């Protein structure tokens, strides 16, 4: 199956699903003559129609978006990105920041030009300086982390 046709099917299914969900939206007593369901219905309806348009139109076979190596690289960075928010919640910004900067710079260093120590120093300094900048200059307290809070009482 050609890629656009497959995308059309996916878009149509998602559009129909959202349209169905939109029919479940109930207006309240303050609702105007047209309810809060109209706009989502219009948008999901438009999405469904365009999805059908993608299925029906002629499309050429396209080259693949990425090579297998490219997908492996994306999966690696995705793993880092997915772990980061959890670390942020439980261990706070400094530890999660070190994790994010260290592993992402390691992955981005395709030529392996920087040593582990160099990357670690970069990660620690970036995380600490950013924490200090947000805390003391911007007055925005970054998360301390549930585990750290527990440990510190």
């Amino acid at each position: 199956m050609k890629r656009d046709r497959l995308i059309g099917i996916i878009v149509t299914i998602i559009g129909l699903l959202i349209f169905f969900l939109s029919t479940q939206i109930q207006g309240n007593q303050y609702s105007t003559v047209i309810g809060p369901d109209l706009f989502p219905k219009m948008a999901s309806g438009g999405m469904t129609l365009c999805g059908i348009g993608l299925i029906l139109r002629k499309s050429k076979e396209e080259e693949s978006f990425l090579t297998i190596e490219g997908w492996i690289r994306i999966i690696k960075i995705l793993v880092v990105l997915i772990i980061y928010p959890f670390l942020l919640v439980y261990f706070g910004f400094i530890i999660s920041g070190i994790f994010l900067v260290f592993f992402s710079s390691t992955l981005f260093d395709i030529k392996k030009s920087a040593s582990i120590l160099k990357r670690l120093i970069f990660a620690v300094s970036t995380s600490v300086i950013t924490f200090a900048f947000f805390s003391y200059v911007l007055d925005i307290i970054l998360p301390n982390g549930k585990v750290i809070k527990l440990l510190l009482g």
Partner: protein
Amino acid sequence: MELLIFVLQTIFTPYVLGLAFIGVTIGIIFGCVPGLAGALAIILLLPFTFMLEPHISIVLLMSIYVGGISGGFISAALIGIPGAPAAIATTIEAWPLTKKGGAVKALGVGVIASFIGTFFSGIVALFLSPFIAKYAVKLGPWEFFGLCLVAVSLVISLSKADVLKGIIAACLGFLIGGIGFAPIGGTLRFTFGITQLNTGLSLGSTMMGFYVMRQIMVDFGKGSVELPEVADQNIRGFGITLKEFTDNIWNIIRSFFIGLSVGFLPGMGSGISAFVAYAKAKDASKHPEEYGKGSIEGIFATETSNNATIGGAMVPMAALGIPGDTTTAILLGALVIQGLEPGPLLLVNNPRFAYVMFGSLIFASLLTFFIQFFGMRFFPKLLKIKFMYLFPVIMVFSFNGAYSEGLSTFNVFMVVVLGIIGLALSVGKFPITPLILAYILSPMLETYLRRGISFSEAGALTFFTRPISLALIVIAVFSIVRGLLKKPNNPSKTVT
């Protein structure tokens, strides 16, 4: 004359000049760092302004505002990530130009266009404020709905690779923008019991997810981990020839008036005006085939327009007490805190303050121009930083930027989720820009649609019986239909 002397006496003192310099510099820095924004800088410095005289505090605030809008194009040009929503349209041309080795040219055009837009819109605001305000207030939800629709449709029509996918992306943007409390009545939609979604997805997480994370993943996946080469040894002038500038005079004038007009309309913003100006510039261009590949016409259009919106937005803010965009809403709050009454009485009761506000806008544009002109020698050095060092820092700032919007770790999770959705859209070759614009405009578009139908006995028919509203709807439909009938230029190309 007495007012003019007062404005000059207020601004041209060493203390106020120093404050303006600090304000513009902070604004530019916040504007150009993804995750920060000029509005955040204003919020941060707001407590400091309480200690100042109102007419001095407004100089500082206006300086940050102007610097913040102007600074957004720097990161758009150098790393392909807009520093602020106002610079999204600029990225479409500035980033390809940088990739071709034209970073200095992209910056030079941005500096000139930003200055022209802000400086002259400030002058217009100064002289025409009382007259224009009277007209702007006569427009109703029908016209505002039409304008939002035109902005989205023009952006969709720019999805040269595939207009159909542009429409799908815009619909998705409307739906994402519709998450949470509905604009009228407050009904909850698509929250699935997640209370953090009640107020909708934050702009920060949406921008960071769809732009920063998506682009980093795509670039890394494609192995593009080298930043473009830039020759910064002998930077002279603005990096463009006089002919390149004079060739764009009409483009600049047209974009200026588009930006100014959009600014007059309360609730619109510099992001919208930039897209409208970009679409118009492409339509009128003798070389439309160069668009998307680093056309300086496109950069002139977007940067002139988004900066002209600043002066335009000052008009409803000063004369009607209605904010033109998020930042002017914060500025409005600052005026109230200072004990001033924004609205028609401001010009009557506090003309000195009002004219210092306009004067500081004009002065801040000059200051921004000089700071950016000299900064042009240093900005490209950003590209000398290795990808492995630069992008982790951008990721950290992006996550923190999203977090600081409501101090919520939920926003950080959403950055990742939206980044993954953005990646899926890139795989399907969906353009991201219509999605972002539709997301931003979604609450306004829905509010105006529902108000438009409710406010009139004729219901939805009123959209077609009011001449301006009808004209705008016709333009919107025409641009979509024309885009659909055109053969795609290059279906395999991913567009932003």
